[in-house]
């Protein structure tokens, strides 16, 4: 017969101690609720972002039809031209050329650090590359505008690609963005390559393969999903970068993939308009949110793709 107190134990001289809870412990329940609320804040934040983007955009798209927004090739909101294509092409211009720079540099650094670098060299170079990731983008933008563009202007060969650049240059912005992205690609790719089991390499070495062959034909393919994830993440960061394009690429909407020219990226447009004099509540002001929706969607898609690739990589090696 089960009883809830320790009468037998009491009889044996043990102080009566009960098995039931001594207190209700409401305090702990309240703490757990607070912790959960903090975690739920992430969902609230996403909802708030969607709210902030969509609410003004709905008003905008009631004035400006989607066909004009996506179809027209003129972006001049003050004159009621709302074709977003030039901004998208502007972003594309910078992102494309930044990737042309960042992918070889980033992957080269990754392969070097993972397969070739002696431990002491790696210990120094890895953190130094991380410093590059930590430099505020306004400093990189300053460098691009006050050093890189004038330099390129000075050394520009004749009228290659249409002549030397002016004060602003999409290609210089691309180089700066690329520099900013290199640590992302090199760090994640290097982690992916280091996770490839040594056995795979040793098998190839044992057959007489050279280091280059092992790096390119064994390690690189094996780490591919991680490498692709890093590149996609880099693209996403490049699309969302604001200060560099604002300071270096210029603020003239222009449909061109030519790196010499001035372009206006989506992020730069948002930045310059928000710091301008346009009255709030107007259609022109609401372009900030419409472009923002497009920007958010593009980066979201990139991020989801990147997550998918990271998961695919983890499946095989963890």
């Amino acid at each position, binding site marked *: 017969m*089960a*009883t*809830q107190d320790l009468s037998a134990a009491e009889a044996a001289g043990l102080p009566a101690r009960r*098995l*039931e*809870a*001594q207190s209700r412990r409401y305090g702990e329940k309240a703490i757990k609720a607070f912790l959960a609320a903090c975690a739920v804040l992430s969902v609230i934040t996403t909802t708030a972002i969607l709210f902030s983007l969509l609410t003004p955009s709905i008003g905008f798209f009631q004035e400006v039809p989607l066909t004009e927004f996506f179809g027209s090739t003129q972006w001049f909101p003050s004159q009621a031209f709302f074709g977003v294509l030039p901004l998208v092409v502007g972003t594309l211009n910078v992102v494309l050329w930044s990737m042309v720079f960042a992918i070889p540099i980033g992957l080269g650094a990754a392969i070097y650090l993972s397969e070739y670098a002696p431990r002491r060299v790696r210990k120094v170079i890895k953190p130094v590359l991380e410093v590059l990731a930590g430099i505020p983008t306004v400093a990189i933008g300053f460098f691009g505008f006050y050093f890189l563009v004038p330099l390129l202007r000075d050394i520009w060969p004749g009228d290659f690609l249409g002549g030397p650049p002016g004060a602003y240059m999409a290609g210089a912005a691309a180089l700066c963005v690329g520099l900013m992205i290199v640590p992302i690609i090199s760090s994640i790719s290097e982690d992916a390559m280091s996770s490839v089991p040594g056995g795979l390499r040793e098998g190839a070495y044992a057959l007489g393969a050279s280091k280059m062959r092992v790096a390119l034909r064994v390690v690189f393919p094996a780490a591919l999903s991680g490498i692709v994830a890093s590149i996609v993440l880099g693209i996403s960061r490049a699309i969302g970068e604001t200060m560099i394009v604002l300071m270096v690429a210029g603020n003239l909407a222009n449909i061109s993939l030519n790196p010499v020219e001035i372009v206006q990226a989506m992020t730069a447009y948002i930045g310059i308009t928000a710091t301008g004099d346009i009255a709030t509540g107007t259609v022109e002001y609401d372009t900030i949110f419409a472009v923002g929706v497009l920007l958010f969607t593009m980066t979201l898609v990139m991020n989801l793709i990147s997550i998918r690739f990271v998961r695919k990589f983890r499946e095989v090696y963890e």
Partner: protein
Amino acid sequence: MVGAMAEGTTKQVHDRPEISVRPDDLRARGPAEHREKTFELKDVAVSYGDSPAVKNVTMDIYRNNITALIGPSGCGKSTLLRCLNRMNDLIPSARVEGQLLYHGADLYGPKVDPVQVRKLIGMVFQKPNPFPKSIYDNIAFGPRTLGMKGDMDEIVEKALRRAALWDEAKDRLSDNAYGMSGGQQQRLCIARAIAIDPDVVLMDEPCSALDPVSTYKIEDLMLELKERYSIVIVTHNMQQAARVSDMTAFLTVEMTSDEKNRWGQVVEYDDTDKIFTNPSDSRTEDYVSGRVG
């Protein structure tokens, strides 16, 4: 009288490391039926999700005894041990069936709080797990957290003395516990467990990660501790069970014919000297004589 008995035990353990039977006066007092029961298990079974781990356990564990659970690996000894202080609650898929009484009270009753249970039934783990704090704070953690009244310095000293660690630790109480050797760390964990003055101390293979000298020290400690506490120990070392325990339960692995399910079961539970000199079941005899397992 107690001191003399303890001395006799120490001599016994060190002089004859092979399987030996201890003298009569150290055995549990009186015949089994008259001994006081700490735990009563009736048809206890434990499963993780759909897989059974332990089945059909019916046995009584007695006060101030050392009860050993022995058997080959995978027979659910640790699982069974962790039922006694409701540590299996930490595993979401774990399910405990049957009746488990603690001093006559249902340990798994609806109103029972596992936290309270663990204040009375402590545990020492296989790999010593001291906290990343000083030796003093390791011992004091339990009493402080449980709000025990009294002079903390005294409580710490008492626990360390009872764990035969005071002399080695008294000059380095504020040193980090990780600086101690494995054997010292395990004695620290024992001191930590008894600092909150529990009723029972469970030990899950406490010496398997330690060297022989530390093992002997802890076995001596167990024999001293059983005067105050009831001890249940899981061990894969038969000689250890023979050396220190009063009662021994031998578990073995059973499986279904298609070998898909395996679980543990108690084959025999009796006074230790009977288990080791004249077991009733042939499986027990095979195991303790080293033929199997």
